[in-house]
């Protein structure tokens, strides 16, 4: 964990946003928690990073962050990807909070595209960056219509999409941003996490918050909520599996990144969650290519 930076950026409020804006976002978060999976409109502010680069997640994090929080930011599962570095630095500068790369040390984890492998606890909040919050968007482009479909719980269209996958490919060919039903009511986009991570959302002890800045929506999955991936009785939901373990730490039940080693087809597979991989190696686990 790196200590809270001594001198946060001057001239800006704690965590960048003014208190009035934070209050507005917190109200939206409370509503989202009260109605699991429902997309709550909120007045997303213009942020100093581009739309589509995590402005929704950053605003949610800014609204919930306190001085004693410990923040972890990941992108593609890793703490050291450029955008994760940039966002972590942003909060280091504007809020002066302590930051960490260790999942177990963090009280707030902002993520893009992954859920950490280490199981989360009741004392943690996971904040997702969401590009397109509407799971029905590519089936029905109109907001007025999709809102009605959600209100009436008309989700047949979602299954038409899955039906088409099976008819064409023999499988449900949706591999990420795989739609889920939350608490038996709203169908929700889990953000573009691989479907491998979907089961982690179900009955999760941590509060899960989703922020979409460009589309101005916040939604939530409260702790210990039923999150069911949509499927057919005769084509049940299945996660990806890899036919080999992590080359560095030997983990077999995790999501792996494929790394191209050379131009002769050389490949290796390593943990996408860098913290998980490092923790395992520190504990003495080793994969076939570990030094």
């Amino acid at each position: 964990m790196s200590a809270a930076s001594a001198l946060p950026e001057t001239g800006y409020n704690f965590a960048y946003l003014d208190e009035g804006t934070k209050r507005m976002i917190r109200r939206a978060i409370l509503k989202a928690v009260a109605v699991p999976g429902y997309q709550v409109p909120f007045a997303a502010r213009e942020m100093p990073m581009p739309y589509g680069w995590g402005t929704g997640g950053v605003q949610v994090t800014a609204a919930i962050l306190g001085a004693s929080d410990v923040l972890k930011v990941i992108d593609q599962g890793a703490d050291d990807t450029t955008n994760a570095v940039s966002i972590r630095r942003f909060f280091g500068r504007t809020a002066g909070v302590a930051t960490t790369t260790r999942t177990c040390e963090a009280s707030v984890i902002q993520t893009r595209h992954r859920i950490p492998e280490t199981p989360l606890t009741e004392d943690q909040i996971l904040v997702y960056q969401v590009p397109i919050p509407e799971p029905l968007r590519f089936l029905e482009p109109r907001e007025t219509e999709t809102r009605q479909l959600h209100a009436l719980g008309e989700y047949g269209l979602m299954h038409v999409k899955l039906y088409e996958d099976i008819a064409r490919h023999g499988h449900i060919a949706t591999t990420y941003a795989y739609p889920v039903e939350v608490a038996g009511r709203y169908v929700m986009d889990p953000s573009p996490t691989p479907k491998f991570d979907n089961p982690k959302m179900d009955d999760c002890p941590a509060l899960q918050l989703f922020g979409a800045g460009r589309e101005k929506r916040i939604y939530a999955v409260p702790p210990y909520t039923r999150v069911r991936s949509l499927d057919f009785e005769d084509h049940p939901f299945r996660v990806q599996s890899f036919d080999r373990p992590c080359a560095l730490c030997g983990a077999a039940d995790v999501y792996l990144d494929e790394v191209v080693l050379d131009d002769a087809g050389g490949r290796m597979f390593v943990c996408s969650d860098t913290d998980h991989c490092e923790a395992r190696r520190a504990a003495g686990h080793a994969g076939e290519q570990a030094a």
Partner: protein
Amino acid sequence: MYVAVKGGEAAIDNAHRLLAERRRGDPAVPELTVAQIREQMSLLVDRVMAEGSLYDPDLAALALKQARGDVVEAVFLVRAYRTTLPRFGASVPVETGAMAVDRRVSATFKDMPGGQVLGPTFDYTHRLIDFALAAAGEPEPAAEAEPGPDAALCPRVTDILGQAGLLEASPPEAGAPVGDLTREAVDFPADRAVRLQALARGDEGFVLALGYSTQRGYGRTHPFVGEIRCGTVAVEFVPEELGFSVPLGDVPLTECQMVNQFHGSGDVPPQFTRGYGLVFGQGERKAMAMALVDRSLRASELGEAVGAPAQDQEFVLAHCDSLQATGFVEHLKLPHYVDFQAELELVRRLRAEHAAARAQGDAPIREAAE
């Protein structure tokens, strides 16, 4: 041993230092001052203020300098700054009828009270590169300007038409509390005030193309330029503790009022309808395009069939903002390898199944339909 190639803090810092160096360009060439940009690139500064939704010429000029002249990036800087500003309230609506006009033209009347005033315009210039500008030198002074027409003698053309009942009254929602899409999420259908705000902030190129599309038949509105006027208007504000308005200063604005096709129904006699555009600074092209699109977006309110892109408010409002567009287009360069891995795995599995089916002599799997 393999080491994952990922960006770190050092790489980001280095990239930003390189950017600063490129921004400065050849150090042998004198550095631009913010005042030079403000004074000599004034239309660019106006555009950044208009799309940045913030009237501050010095800040816009500085943003342009920092952005190496990239308009969208400069708008981005101004907007991110604007977000952090405290909001005291809304001004009293500006009175464009009392504008001190630099320029004022109407295409609907040859002459009208106050007359036509060409002002500083590119219209009627021949677009020949002026090589003399490459050498320094002061321009020939403008003819001694007559004092601008007295605002009182310069009524809006739309007011003249309105008095005779030939033009619809300003739509009824005028005077209602005005929405602010930077403070509330847009709720469709959005009212006209919010649509106008979105268009005023919208990307000039996008709004221009939409306006143009209406002229080419995608939602025709038969527009006439009732009036374009550029000049300065006073901004007034009513502090709660005073209860009366105090002047805050003057801002330059461009206003365009389009007069559009007849409309009538059983209850309302035929009359012209309005399209409205208003932007900071001298932004005639933007104001005109905005007025065209404003009128198109009123199609359903006026009982017209809605089909063309410029008539579809969800389409227009969702896509006119350059920052939303650029952010989302450019986010594609962020890493997506987790998702790509998921797709890769699927494609490999489908290919393996395809090959297995082939080997068994089964009929080949049907090609995907699209």
